[in-house]
């Protein structure tokens, strides 16, 4: 045996794992050192709050100063999946914050705190995650809401589409606020905060499958400030709801069913951007069924309609808010639309997936 060279004992220890700073690997979801490192390096700089900084497995927060025991809490949770992760006007991070902030706000609540659960796919560039965290930070700041708890898991390559985010939100509802899908009454006026179908068309175009380009931007935005000013101006508002998946038509059908009323729309009053209309024409889509992420349907008694509209006009997300219809007693549970040429038809819910037409 050749003993000329001494064996270095130091060299025989197990090699340290690579730090994997550029892309997500399974170790980032282990709960160990790599997870901690990811939290410190990516999440904390963007999504810090006093609750998160305590490093507990729970978030502990205070109720807002104006709350009392007579108010109520509103909670909502939503899982966000979108392909591509970044699209004109937004990204999955902004969507995850705004989606839940808006759902909580639709109860008439002031959204206060959010939690976020991340499911990362092995191989996701860390830079992508950082951009998403930055976008969430911006949206949280805009909404005035804090992130108070979070979780990260990693799944094997191919088991998730890059990144999924679940967010849950909590808000405080004043004791005098009564908002709900079952509260629309005959005689009420139906308002919309802006143009319809922007988000759905922007995302579809970003997938690059349309065969044509469009400048349409997603409308994804936090609506809590707009809603707060509507409720101040029109305290007897009956229904607030954001027409997300399924679009205006599907959402109004839900309200008509919950409230046991008919809703009559005027097609000529419904705002749709020319580029969205053109894209829908080409694909055979109806913009009334296309998703929105920054619009709200407001149903108010007629005497408060003008005040609600004025309040919306004063917010950057409600500049072109307008009346689109009225609530009637019958035919109950139906949405009707007076068409551009004066005909009348039923506006039904969408059956299954919206598919482009053939010719």
């Amino acid at each position, binding site marked *: 045996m050749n003993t000329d060279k001494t064996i270095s004992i130091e060299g025989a220890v197990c090699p340290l794992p690579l730090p994997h700073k550029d892309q997500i690997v399974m170790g980032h979801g282990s709960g160990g050192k790599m997870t901690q490192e990811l939290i410190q390096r990516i999440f904390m700089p963007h999504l810090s709050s006093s609750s998160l900084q305590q490093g507990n497995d729970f978030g502990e927060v205070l109720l807002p100063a104006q709350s009392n025991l007579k108010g109520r809490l509103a909670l909502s949770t939503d899982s966000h999946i979108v392909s591509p992760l970044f699209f004109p006007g937004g990204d999955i991070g902004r969507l995850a914050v705004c989606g839940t902030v808006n759902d909580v706000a639709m109860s008439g609540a002031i959204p206060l705190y959010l939690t976020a659960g991340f499911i990362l796919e092995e191989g996701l560039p860390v830079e992508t995650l950082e951009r998403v965290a930055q976008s969430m930070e911006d949206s949280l700041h805009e909404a005035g809401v804090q992130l108070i708890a979070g979780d990260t898991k990693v799944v094997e390559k191919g088991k998730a589409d890059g990144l999924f985010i679940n967010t849950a939100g909590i808000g405080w509802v004043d004791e005098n606020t009564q908002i709900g899908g079952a509260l629309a009454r005959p005689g009420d006026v139906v308002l919309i905060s802006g143009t319809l179908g922007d988000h759905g068309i922007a995302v579809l175009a970003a997938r690059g*499958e*349309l*065969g044509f380009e469009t400048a349409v931007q997603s409308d994804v935005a936090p609506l809590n400030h707009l809603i707060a000013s509507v409720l101040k101006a029109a305290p007897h508002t009956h229904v607030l709801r954001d027409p997300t998946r399924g679009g205006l038509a599907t959402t109004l059908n839900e309200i008509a069913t919950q409230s046991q009323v008919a809703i009559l729309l005027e097609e000529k009053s419904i705002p749709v951007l*020319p580029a969205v*209309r*053109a894209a829908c*024409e080409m*694909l*055979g889509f109806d913009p009334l069924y296309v998703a929105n992420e920054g619009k709200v349907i407001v149903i108010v008694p007629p005497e408060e309609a003008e005040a609600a509209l004025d309040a919306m006009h004063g917010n950057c997300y409600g500049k072109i808010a307008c009346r689109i219809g009225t609530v009637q007693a*019958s*035919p109950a549970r*139906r949405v*009707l639309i007076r*068409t*551009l*040429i*004066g*005909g*009348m*038809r*039923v506006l*039904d819910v969408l*059956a*299954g997936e919206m*598919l*482009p*037409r*053939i*010719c």
Partner: protein
Amino acid sequence: MRFVDEFRDASLVKGVLDEIRRTVTRKWVLMEICGGQTHSILHYGLDELLPPEVELVHGPGCPVCVTSLELIDKALVIASQPDVILTSYGDMLRVPGSHEDLFSVRAAGGQVRVVYSPLDAIRIAKENPDKQVVFFAIGFETTAPNNAMTVLQAKALGLKNYSVLVSQVCVPPAMHAILGSPQNRVQGFLAAGHVCAVMGYWEYPPIADKYGVPIVVTGFEPLDLVQGIRMAVHQLEKGTHEVENAYGRVVTYEGNRASQAIINKVYQPCDRQWRGIGMIPMSGWGLREEFSDFDAERRFQVGHIQTQESTTCIAGQILQGLMKPPDCPAFGTLCTPETPLGATMVSSEGACAAYYRYGRIKNLMAEK
């Protein structure tokens, strides 16, 4: 939107409707051929604005609806095979075959992709050289040149992994079948504007002459439709049976010669089964022998599959204008867009689906 809004102008539409009302003296039955027209009529509530004398019946011009069950079953068999990517237009995915639809094949792991343009299928074939890419080439004369173009492209590119499952059908033979039926009620036609954009309307004068029916080439916007109806009613009241063009901004007598040349190069006329109607002789196109390498039926040996259609569904009578969707006992109860018994309830261009979505207003008013 320019060149669209003008054709949806309520006051212009009303003017033409008033003219129809002044002209019409008795009951007439008109058929709009194309499912896109049916969709548009019900979408705008146009049928309710017409005078009661004018009855519109809905024709067979919905490509998804008339694609035979047999071809759908063949598509399902092909799509279920490993290493196959089946591509088609979106609506086709929902149409039930004998036992399942393409969505279920996809859910079970089959690769089924929606394409917006048939040339996307060629792109998919280029990107996936280890897979067989099949395009389910359905449609009327409107889709024929695009679908045929993929075969020419595949040949030019030397693509060995591309084939087409052809289900091309043609309008004029269907008009013969409808008008030649002893139960026919149709007295005038609104010819399908986009079919005529490709083919022109030189094929129609012999039909107008043989059966004594006016045929008006008609577009899809509300103003196009009322204009087509006005011209057809005017002819019926006068007792003439000319072929007229109410869609002059898109359609010429000769049609699109370049497209016709592509169709003729790739396809030849053949017999076709129409779902719900049956076999219409020489009513479709199939691949010419020199392109038979691209024939998916041969490549996947599914030529032997034969299927019987359900007897409950009255789609056949609806597509021939003999009955209307609400005449069907299953309409809106057993048969809905979520649980379609027949293809006319599936496609947005299908008469049953259009009635289901838009046409229930009268019933609703009656309910109340």
